[in-house]
């Protein structure tokens, strides 16, 4: 049988002809009817460019197909050479024969048009439907992607819906005209794990229903395990490996593929969890950081005279402690209060209530007044783009009032070396570094003052898998070397598994389960923890079916004076307790 899409020796360049930069160097593949092809590879490897060449959307980004052939089998059985097709033909296949779902649902939907209008457009364009007909079709499309209360949602604008909802809308839009080929470009990267699981389930189900072909792009090889028939691994614009799913997962040939596979978590066995944990060592030293009954509330104002009408209970009664040399990971969905907890510990928001104490270790040279330092999620945003590295590293020192002398400069150089940055970095600016390097810079800066606790808020989430792995290794090494305690905040279970000694699970502003990593991850007790872990894609769960769950996260907004009930903890292991649900 003829493949629906056949790509031969595709080369794509960007920029004006004279100074064109080729980013895809001779990619070839075939996609059979009803087949799912996964393209994996790190950021910038050319996944999107390759996929979006098949409907020539790259034209609008300034790209050009310089050579190669792309043949699309059309619904009527004819074959279209996409590389030489005219504008008319291209708009004819876009949407009708090739649907696309993009990575960022928040930005990929037009913010000023209602959901309904945007979905209806597809029907108008390719089906010639108008008015009430189009509206009905749009509602059906929304119902198809399991959006409850579809009629009402049609009138909503994108800002009124959550990320997961929006991604469903995107899917509904892409599938509106039953395209025979769906390109899903990292459709879940911007979403929470639990939401990701639902979207994946939905895609799998729709694929079964319609029998369409799909190109599924991802940088997470664990995720593709659930859906792909074939996998294509890309690096630097070239295909490095290509084959059946099981072949790639079980017998990876290329080192890069092996690397990707290594980064996938394996909780069930608990084998990957860190074993250098500190809790079992007796007698326990005094904790470096102790947090007790931390409450952060943001008042909500409204009405005529700006009276408080309620409060966002961002963090509600959080308590934990952190030993020297230990990593406590806080996991939870977006909005569960992880960052707020961290910011309270750092003194960036003032808690409504609660106490925390930081035990400074025996005075060490260069000890800062504030023994807690922070590494933020987005390494670019946390570095002032207009300061060079030397100025960046000097800042914490200047803040303590210490003059920048040779000793300080030596320490800078030493730290840069330690985190693996070239020595000549001092005079460079943040934009001259890659994402991973920037994060190392942030780590170096946090270490300038010899802190005892480092708070890492999503510190590796923005990084590529391979870069992520190297930064994590560095963190572990530094922890050993300096006896640092880490408060590690992440929503990525794979990462948590590799760095945490202990894990705290947050849900709606409260900790619902806390304990040592191995026992929490391999034997979760709280239903929410279970759901969270079940949602994490692993290569062990090939072509697995998820249950569709459309429950919403509970609102954190509470009336004035509301106090949550006192927590009731159940001990379920030596160092593992869970909150009892009432």
């Amino acid at each position: 049988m003829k493949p629906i899409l056949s790509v031969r020796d595709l080369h794509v360049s960007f920029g004006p002809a004279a100074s064109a930069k080729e980013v895809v160097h001779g990619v070839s593949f075939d996609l059979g009817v009803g087949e799912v092809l996964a393209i994996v590879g790190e950021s910038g490897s050319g996944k999107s460019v390759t996929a979006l060449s098949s409907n020539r959307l790259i034209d609008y980004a300034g790209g050009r197909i310089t050579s190669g052939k792309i043949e699309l089998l059309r619904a009527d059985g004819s074959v279209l050479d996409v590389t030489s097709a005219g504008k008319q033909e291209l708009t004819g296949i876009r949407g009708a024969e090739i649907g696309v779902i993009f990575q960022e649902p928040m930005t990929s939907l037009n913010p000023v048009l209602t959901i309904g209008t945007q979905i209806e457009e597809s029907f108008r364009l390719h089906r010639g439907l108008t008015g009430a007909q189009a509206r009905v079709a749009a509602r059906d499309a929304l119902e198809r992607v399991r959006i409850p209360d579809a009629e009402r949602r049609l009138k909503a604008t994108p800002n009124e819906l959550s990320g997961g909802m929006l991604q469903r809308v995107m899917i509904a839009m892409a599938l509106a005209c039953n395209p025979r080929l769906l390109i899903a470009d990292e459709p879940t990267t911007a979403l929470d794990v639990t939401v990701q699981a639902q979207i994946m389930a939905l895609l799998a189900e729709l694929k079964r229903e319609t029998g369409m072909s799909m190109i599924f792009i991802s940088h997470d090889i664990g995720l593709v395990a659930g859906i792909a028939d074939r996998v294509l691994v890309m690096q630097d614009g070239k295909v490095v490996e290509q084959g059946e799913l099981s072949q790639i997962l079980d017998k990876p040939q290329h080192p890069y593929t092996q690397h990707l596979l290594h980064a996938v978590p394996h909780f069930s066995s608990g084998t990957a969890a860190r074993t250098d944990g500190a809790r079992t060592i007796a007698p326990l030293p005094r904790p470096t950081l102790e947090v007790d009954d931390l409450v952060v509330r943001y008042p909500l104002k409204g009405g005529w005279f700006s009276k408080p009408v309620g409060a966002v209970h961002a963090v509600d009664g959080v308590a934990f402690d952190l030993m020297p040399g230990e990593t406590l990971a806080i996991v939870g969905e977006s909005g569960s209060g992880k960052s707020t907890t961290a910011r309270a510990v750092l003194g960036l928001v003032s808690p409504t209530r609660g106490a925390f104490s930081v035990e400074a270790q025996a005075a060490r040279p260069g000890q800062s007044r504030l023994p807690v330092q922070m590494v933020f999620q987005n390494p670019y945003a946390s570095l002032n783009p207009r300061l060079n590295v030397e100025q960046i590293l000097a800042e914490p020192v200047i803040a303590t009032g210490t003059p920048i002398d040779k000793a300080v400069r030596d320490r800078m150089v030493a730290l840069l070396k330690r985190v693996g940055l070239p020595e000549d970095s001092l005079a460079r600016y943040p934009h001259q570094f890659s994402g991973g390097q920037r994060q190392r810079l942030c780590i170096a800066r946090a270490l300038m003052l010899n802190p005892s606790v480092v708070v890492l808020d999503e510190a590796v989430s923005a990084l590529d898998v391979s870069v992520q792995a190297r930064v994590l290794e560095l963190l572990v090494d530094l922890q050993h070397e300096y006896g640092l305690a880490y408060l590690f905040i992440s929503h990525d279970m794979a990462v948590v598994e590799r760095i945490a000694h202990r894990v705290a699970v947050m849900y709606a502003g409260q900790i619902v389960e806390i304990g040592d990593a191995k026992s929490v991850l391999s034997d979760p007790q709280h239903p929410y923890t279970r759901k969270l872990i079940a949602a994490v894609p692993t290569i062990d769960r090939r072509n697995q079916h998820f249950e569709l769950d459309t429950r919403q996260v509970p609102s954190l907004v509470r009336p004035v004076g509301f106090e949550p009930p006192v927590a009731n903890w159940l001990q379920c292991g030596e160092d593992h307790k869970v909150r009892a649900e009432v």
Partner: protein
Amino acid sequence: MSYVIRRLRAFPLVLIGVSIIVFIAIRLVPGDSITAMLGTEAGLLTPQQRDSLAIYFGIDQPWPVQYWRWFTGLFSGDLGISVTYGKPVLSVILERFPLTLELALLAMLIALSIGVPAGIFAATRNERPADLGVRIAAMIGQSTPSFVVGLVIIYILSAGFGVLPTMGAFTPFWQDPLQNLGQMILPAITLGCAFASSVTRVTRSAMLDVLSDDYVRTARSKGASERSVVWRHALPNALVPVVTLSGIEFGYLLGGAVIVEQIYALPGLGRMVLEAILQRDYALVQGAVLFIALNFMIVNLLVDLAYAALDPRIRLEGR
């Protein structure tokens, strides 16, 4: 709604500030109503004559008393009496306002109907000769002082073609739409010229930003035609800066376009205030500036409301 109320609550404060500044400023200017009326002949007045004139003009009391008298009058809608017009200030202002409003609206209409399409045209031909042409034309339009444009238009029309709309008296639109438009069109073009140029530039750069946004790519992936992508998907998103600019310009124009009114002899607010300052018609200056400031704030509020209408992402909160 509560947003509007919150914004409106700030109005009185700003207006009081404006009124105090204008009250003091106009009195700090040397000369007074008496010298304005009599010129150098004021030197022939006896002190007694002078005093009685001061009472006549209401400038006999100390400043705070004068201010208080004027300020309390405001609450009963009494802005005082204009000494040049011999009429209540409010009625003088309201007589002039329709012209100013119409001029501002026309100028904005011209600016938007030229500027927006031109900006889009340039943006969709980014860095190509057509784009460059539009941009240069826009910059030239923006950089020519309006009085030069006005003088040249008048000269060319009158000396070259022997035609000119009737000047001086203003015919309200509802009396004779044709004559009214005949009078207003040239001044509106003169003002619209620079205004359209700004609109073009802002539209162009906003469109360039928007055209590279993700949802535009989404629209294309659905097979939308180029026209629909530009006008339906991109343009509404690019309108916020255009509305901002138009709002600010419009707000300024509602204060009267002194120079253009002067050249085309239009009895608008701008010239009225200028004359009032020159005549030291204190009540009129105070009332007019207050009125203009109020307009400006209302326009600003409308612009902010327009944002929210244009872009549902924008939530109106405090400021």
